[in-house]
């Protein structure tokens, strides 16, 4: 359990770092690190497929996309971030952590829940048999994303 909590704390730290860092590249990398931690957490929760996906897709692909965007938008003038963020953000964050802890310990413990039966079958047939409609949805989302990118980057007659 200690390792799990350590990983979780690492995850939260890197995420907060990703937001707080001034330099874009550094924050992208810390974001990748965070998703790495998350992947490991998934593995420890014996959710291998989710872990693989998390690491390869989120840590990999999305970070690459981020870096690509940072590169492409270098030309623009420097965005003056307000100085206040550095102390406002942690202050609120810590305050929320305390409230969050108390709430989790006190109130939410009492959420009634049904005991669910043991799961049968492998991940494959759960995904394929149980939630086939999700796959249709996924295909649709991918199509949507592709067409969106195509539309946004189309050359030629742009209509203002």
């Amino acid at each position, binding site marked *: 359990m200690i390792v799990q909590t350590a990983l979780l704390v690492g995850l939260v730290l890197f995420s907060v770092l990703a937001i707080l860092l001034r330099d874009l590249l550094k924050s992208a990398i810390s974001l990748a690190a965070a998703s790495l931690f998350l992947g490991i957490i998934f593995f420890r929760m014996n959710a291998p497929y989710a872990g693989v996906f998390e690491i390869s897709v989120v840590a990999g692909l999305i970070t690459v996309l981020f870096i690509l965007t940072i590169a492409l938008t270098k030309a623009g003038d420097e965005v003056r971030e307000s100085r206040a963020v550095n102390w406002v953000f942690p202050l609120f964050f810590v305050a929320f952590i305390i409230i969050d802890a108390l709430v989790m310990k006190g109130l939410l413990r009492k959420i009634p*829940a*049904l005991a669910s039966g043991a799961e049968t079958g492998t991940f494959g047939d759960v995904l394929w048999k149980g939630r086939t*409609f999700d796959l*249709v949805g996924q295909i*649709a989302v991918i199509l949507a994303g592709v*067409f*969106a990118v195509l*539309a946004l980057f189309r050359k030629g*007659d742009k209509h203002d």
Partner: protein
Amino acid sequence: MIILFVALPLVVAGILPLVGKVSRRVVPDLLANAALLFLLVYAAIAGRHLIAGGPVLQQLSWFGEPVAIRLALDGFSLLMLLAIALVGLAACLFSIDYMEHYGAKANYYALFLVMIAGMNGLVLATDLFNVYLFMEVAAVASYALVAFGLGRDELEAAFKYLMLSVVATAFILISVAVIFGMTGSLDFAAVAKALQELNAGAAVGVASAFFLMGFGLKAALIPFHAWLPDAHPSAPAPISAVLSGLLIKVSGVYAMTRIFLNVFGLTPALSTVLMSLGALSMVVAAFLALGQKDMKRMLAYSSISQVGYVVLGIGIGTPLGIAGGLFHLFNHALAKGLLFLTSGSVQQATGTRNLDEMGGLAKRMPITAATNLVGALSIAGVPPLNGFWSKLIIIIALVQSGHPVFAVIAVLTSVLTLWYYLLMQRKAFFGKLNEKWAAVKEAPFWMTAATVFLALLCVGIGILFSSTVTTWIQPAADVLADGVHAVIGSWGF
């Protein structure tokens, strides 16, 4: 075969870009409109008799062995499918001429059909997570479509729309996760049964608050509405017609109603919150619309206000209220779609959306002016058009269920609505012809055909309101009403 509603648009969307390479305009137009026409016919005729035998649970099989795509087609979903098909077809017809100068028509149609597929999927989903998934499909497609013009305003609007929607979907997922945690399953019926046994009042309250925020933003109720007045005007006219007419209703009102009435059960607390949100949206959005100079922005605020009516209607919880709400949802979809299409024709003819620059266009563009008038009067609730009957039923439901204050607010808001629509008529169509537009011609064929199609629908439903209510609206309301009785009985609070 109700999977067709989702599969067909996806498949056509898939092959469209390839086709787009071959012939830039004719085939994409043809294909897109044919698909939507088929959906309309299928929904109108096949759907009707499907329903005759009670809600249809479609168990699909993929190459022989059963596959777990459980789609439920009941009165409510069928009503939504019909609305989507109708307004979608009209917008598609409209975009044949309108999208000429946008270019990349095939890409546009692809995105359009994906959005339609997303909406159809959401309507047919019986699983909380699927609702999220297909909403996201439609949302992604709509971000791209809002930004389709690639202008400064379009991009800004699309970005803000995206960033706000993402937060909304995050909250929806939190709530789905909590429900999943409590009941262990995601299917509507199973969750409903499980929640009845658990009677975890507080937790469901918080979950419904999160859902309300998420779907409220999608439906653009007042505190969550800020993205809509920017997104809808900057989208190309047929898209803003579909956005205002369908998207905010399907991913906002439909999802909210389905979950609150069929899954959670409409508790008195939830009903009051829904009604107050609806009433707030009605009044504030109506006042905002009053002060607008931009025609499409006024229409956007009007959509917020009319969605407020629908939510108020459904929030009452009585069968009559729900019927009124749904009927108004359907009428508003048609009428608002029509209004956005006419604004598109005006924008294409005069090149401006600013009402002050327009003047007396009725002289040059009689059909557009007439159809705009029909749409405006229908939404303002002036008889004999369709908007009047739905508002009437809502007000009757309000008075009967003992909410006189809401009834008065609803009545006064419809006066306000008429005021700003008259403002629009006076500035754009009804006054003296502005000499700048002396050379303006009537909108091209397909655009006027689309607007006339919707206008005839509005007038037709207005006159044949009783048969429309009995064939389309009553079954949808019964589905929800049973939901309320079944659930509310047990929860009590």
